[in-house]
């Protein structure tokens, strides 16, 4: 032993943060070591896929609603074909005169016959079946300049029925109500899946933080006795879990986004009806990109609560 130790120095004593490299060494770790980053990666990937499905279903329903929000179908139910045609023309005149109607199209009989052919057979004369054998209502496709709400439908219905007793007005969206309900149910399912995945992720972090705390209990006790505060100690564990969560989040986002992109490509190739409306928009991709951030925040919060509650049981 030689020289003079600097014990005469006056040292700062304050409850300051204990972060970064100073704190890093207290809980030794290697990057992406242990199962934690991989568990988080799987959870994030599944969450990204569930969220993408929910967003796509939402887009699909929104697109269908927008297309059909002002659309009506007017049926003219009349057994006599000539009278039916005349009533259809009169109904079209009445509707064109209404300021709420932006446009309409009387569906030609040929087109109706073609639409119904798979169910009632091809058209043609005679009474042995086909289009001519069944009194099919005349149809008018109406597009309103306003929303086709219940009051508007009732008003138009009353106007038409006063002159044409066999007229009946329906919102086209009514036909798709069961589909909307099914889409909404699937969206709720996606939300429930996301909530379950978040809960499972929090549970995994809780277990990992508890295990890490138990493994380093001796170190924690020493740091406590040297004047370390609960916050300082919690930050050390929080930092470790945050790094794991960030690594897992990046891997999970990459896996999830790749899966969504591949599946999206498959659906885009269908290019048919409602399915085409289910594409993800730019904002949707931003929402998906934010999922790992939410995962990291959740992991940090869970680790902090876990460690702080364990520390409170110590003196």
């Amino acid at each position, binding site marked *: 032993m030689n020289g003079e*130790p600097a014990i*005469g120095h006056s040292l700062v004593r304050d409850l300051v943060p204990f972060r970064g490299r100073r704190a890093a060494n207290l809980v030794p770790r290697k990057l992406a070591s242990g199962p934690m980053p991989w568990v988080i990666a799987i959870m994030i990937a599944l969450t990204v896929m569930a969220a993408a499905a929910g967003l796509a279903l939402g887009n699909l329903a929104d697109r269908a609603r927008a297309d059909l929000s002002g659309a009506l179908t007017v049926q003219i139910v009349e057994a006599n074909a000539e009278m039916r045609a005349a009533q259809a023309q009169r109904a079209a005149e009445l509707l064109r005169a209404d300021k709420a109607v932006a446009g309409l199209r009387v569906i030609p009989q040929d087109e109706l016959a073609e639409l119904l052919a798979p169910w009632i057979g091809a058209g043609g004369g005679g009474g042995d079946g086909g289009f001519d054998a069944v009194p099919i209502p005349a149809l008018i496709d109406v597009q309103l300049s306003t929303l086709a709400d219940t009051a508007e439908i009732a008003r138009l219905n009353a106007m038409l029925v006063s002159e044409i007793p066999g007229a009946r007005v329906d919102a086209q969206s009514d036909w798709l109500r069961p589909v909307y309900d099914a889409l909404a149910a699937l969206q709720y399912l996606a939300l429930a899946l996301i909530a379950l995945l978040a809960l499972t992720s929090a549970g995994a972090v809780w277990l990992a933080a508890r295990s890490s705390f138990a493994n380093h209990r001796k170190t924690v006790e020493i740091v406590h006795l040297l004047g370390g505060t609960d916050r300082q100690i919690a930050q050390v564990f929080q930092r470790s879990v945050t790094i794991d969560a960030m690594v897992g989040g990046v891997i999970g986002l990459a896996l999830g986004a790749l899966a969504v992109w591949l599946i999206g490509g498959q659906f885009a190739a269908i290019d048919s009806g409602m399915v085409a409306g289910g594409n993800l928009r730019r904002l949707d991709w931003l929402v998906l990109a934010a999922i790992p951030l939410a995962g990291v925040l959740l992991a940090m919060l869970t680790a902090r609560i876990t460690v702080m509650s364990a520390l409170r049981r110590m003196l």
Partner: protein
Amino acid sequence: MTHGAGEIVTFDNVGLRYGTEPEVLRDLAFTLFAGRFYFLTGASGAGKTSLLKLLYLAQRPSRGAIRMFGNDMITLPRDRLPMFRRKLGVVFQDFRLIEHLSAFDNVALPLRLAGVRESELVRPVSEMLEWVGLAKRMDGVPATMSGGEQQRVAIARAVIGRPDLLIADEPTGNVDPDMALKLLQLFERLNRLGTTVIVATHDIHLLRQVPDSLIMRLQKGSLLDPTGALRFPPRLAPRASERGSEA
């Protein structure tokens, strides 16, 4: 019991039991005065380590009152304990070094916890390790060190922050007589700078090395104080330095 100036620790009718076991410490009533040097002696099992645990705030007593630095430690909220622990330097009997940290990082830890900048702690930590003869072992981890070396790291860690109260549990148990003397000189030097020192030891030779020291003798959990020096108001003999100045 009132608390006057110069009193750093006051125990009043303190008892300690673990669980439902009989009391390991009974009716402890004493005062530690700022700037004094105390030896705590007693046979194995007398309760020395339990008493030290109360002093370094690792344990709350089962009964009685403890005041430290003018504060009631029994009612003190848990979140205020760290501020008081930072006024203490503790040499644990089992060293309690952090196994995966180097000697340097172990000694630097109290300073880092207290918020000392890295640039400001390198010199004092290096000098302290040099002074305890571990200049060449700064990067070594405890597992690669002998018991004596680990003990010196533990002592360096305890004194690096210039504590108000230094508590040492058998600090010279694993070092050779020369090193023991050197360490005791370090404690004395700290004591002269104003740190109150309490050393638990079996080593009767150490007691003679610090002539101004006061002896606290524990016997089966009770404190023997035949001279009354540990009571309040104390019957203290003047320190050697004080006798010199009077002369």
